[in-house]
């Protein structure tokens, strides 16, 4: 009996304390509520747990910093920007459920998209139904802007045609007419399969003399890739195109280095900030690296320099490509809201189509015909020495910036794919 009484007492105390806390937080309007005339919710449903969480967390931090920066400048339409976030577990059904809840319960005015293209595909139908402008800043499958096109979605990331074309263009410049034996290594899902196919197609289009000697398709996030890796090494490729990202690329690099693989092959991989940081000195110097928006690729860009400083101050880390692209997505949306002075989905879509917005990535143009941003892809080589600023290896100073004019589908080609 005593135990029950004690338990009831403890519960009562807990309730009282909880009510006191709630009371304290609702008793008087917060500073932000006094300053703004209400608030605008924006949503980000992305992968915040599991093996690709690094990308989602980076994106979320970019969105949060963008909202904070907007609020510091007085918000939008006099209202405070609030970020509503949810974890999609890299699952389309969870992503769709998150977005439905954000639209119906949180009344979000814009959605900033997920990591996975499969999740994005599930969400786009919903946001189109409710006319919520949606910005894809990480998921980059070409089908999202072609076969699965909806009028309310915009892609501010180089897509699965632009990215491999950029790498192929760089390679073509380097190798000339020499014949190359190429191996590919890719996560076994739509992004990886499409990227590899488009890379090989681009090599063919560019007239690069090549033969494919081995192709391996480990599962996304698989920790044990020894069988696929040993098969790739056995095929003895002169050049290896690896479209893995984040932790998977770190995993591959660590294991392949043990075989002395990088002495025998020219590695091409998505060595963006996160894997370079994780690999430290183990990052393969001289390997060809590509990335969608590395901050070190934006030279003489004051807006990017200032952003990097703000991000470093806010999170005590340098911004990943995922954070940069997410931030620029919010800038694109915010500029349109300011222009039309409304949150109406249809008005915003019209304002964004064909618009050019000054962003931390420079002027960012959204093509009217398919809502694809005209953004470059960056290709370079991994440096030998640690970068003095960030404390680990980055790229050598010479960075090839692939022009979107050369890598994008034409409007006619894009429309033909719908």
């Amino acid at each position, binding site marked *: 009996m005593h135990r029950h009484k004690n338990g009831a007492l403890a519960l009562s105390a807990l309730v009282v304390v909880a009510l006191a806390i709630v009371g304290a937080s609702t008793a008087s309007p917060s500073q932000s509520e006094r300053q703004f005339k209400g608030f605008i919710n924006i949503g980000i449903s992305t992968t*915040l*747990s*599991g*093996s*690709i*969480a*690094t990308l*989602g*967390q980076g994106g979320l931090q970019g969105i949060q910093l963008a909202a904070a920066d907007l609020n510091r400048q007085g918000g939008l339409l006099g209202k405070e920007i609030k970020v509503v976030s949810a974890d999609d577990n890299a699952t389309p059904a969870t992503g769709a459920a998150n977005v439905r809840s954000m639209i119906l319960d949180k009344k979000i005015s814009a959605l900033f998209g997920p990591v996975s293209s499969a999740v994005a595909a599930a969400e786009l139908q919903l946001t189109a139904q409710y006319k919520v402008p949606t910005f894809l800043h990480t998921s980059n499958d070409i089908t999202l802007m072609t076969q699965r096109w909806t009028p309310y979605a915009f892609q501010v990331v180089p897509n699965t045609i632009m990215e491999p074309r950029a790498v192929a263009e760089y390679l073509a410049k380097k190798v000339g007419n020499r014949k190359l034996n190429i191996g590919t290594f890719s996560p*076994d899902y739509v992004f990886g399969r499409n990227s590899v196919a488009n890379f090989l197609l681009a090599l063919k289009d560019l007239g690069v003399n090549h033969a494919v000697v*081995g*192709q*391996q*398709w*480990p*599962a996304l*996030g*698989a*920790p*044990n890739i*020894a*069988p*696929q*890796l*040993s*098969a790739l*090494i*056995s095929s003895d490729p002169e050049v290896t195109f690896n479209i893995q990202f*984040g*932790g*998977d*690329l*770190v*995993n591959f690099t*660590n*294991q392949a*280095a*043990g*075989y*002395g693989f990088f002495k025998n092959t020219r590695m091409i991989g998505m060595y963006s900030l*996160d*894997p370079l*940081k*994780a*690999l*430290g*000195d*183990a990052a393969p110097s001289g390997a060809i690296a590509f990335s969608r928006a590395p901050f070190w690729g934006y030279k003489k860009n004051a807006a990017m320099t200032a952003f990097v400083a703000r991000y470093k101050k806010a999170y005590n880390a340098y911004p990943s490509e995922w954070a940069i692209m997410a931030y620029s997505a919010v800038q694109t949306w915010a500029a349109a809201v300011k222009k039309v002075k409304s949150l109406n989905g249809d008005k915003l879509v019209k304002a964004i189509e064909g618009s050019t917005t000054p962003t931390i990535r420079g002027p960012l143009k959204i093509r009217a015909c398919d809502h694809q941003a005209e953004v470059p892809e960056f290709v370079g080589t991994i440096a030998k020495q640690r970068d003095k600023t960030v404390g680990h290896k980055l790229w050598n100073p010479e960075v090839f910036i692939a022009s979107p004019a050369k890598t994008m589908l034409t409007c006619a080609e894009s429309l033909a794919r719908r």
Partner: protein
Amino acid sequence: MDTVVIEVSGTLSAASSLFLASAGLTLIFGAMRVINLAHGSFYMFGAFLTTSLVGFATGARFWWAVPVAALAVALIGAGVELGVIRHIYGKEHLTQLLATYALFLIFADLALRIWGAESRAVPVPKSFFGSIEIAGEQIPKYNLVIVGTAIAVGVGLWLLLKLTTLGWRIRAAVDDPESLEASGVNLQLLFTVVFALGALLAGLGGAVISPQIAVTPGIDGSIIVGAFIVTVVGGLGSILGAAVAALLIGASETAGTLAAPDWASTFPYIAMIAILAVRPWGLFGQPER
């Protein structure tokens, strides 16, 4: 022919990784009849703790980080047994699955909060950095550590179960727990020790593998599927079965990458279905009585 060495090395490395991930799982099921879905969490904690203990510097710290991480995970395992698992012995498998799945989710969230979402890498210790040449092919020196640890764990467990009092009691607990308890053995303490030992093996696996992988949130879920396949194919509770199954699964995937790379990931599942169709209780398991 000259690539055979690389293929064999890849197979052994894959099999050893699988065995290290599954040995504790099968030990716990064998002794306690508990299906522990949180086993991958112990593996993940072993890897993350190693990253924290080693930091980003190479050197001898790795060699003490591994046992410290494994022991720390054993303590976590003991705590989990005392706090949760003890209360679900003898319950339906579904109850056990739900309880341990809840632990899996809680631990995943905890790891995310402690270590964040970033990928972490543990540098290969200097003495095993680089490669050795076998038959003209370069093989990672660190593969020797992984294969050696797997062999040591397998032999160690076999000796423990066959030759020690603790092993005798564990085997007796499987066959006749009531008689064992009647003979004065503290069954609850025994189960705590076994569960902690299983957790230690998972932690050891995560710690030893950590220089070869990217340590990220999600490795708990990534390894649990492979570990379960090995455990089920080998026969629930059989250490020898887990070793043989790990080798078979590793070999089938390697064969897949050579014969049909597009379908390589499917090969282990095909092997699993084929084996379970013939022996539903696994290679070295026994039918449920």
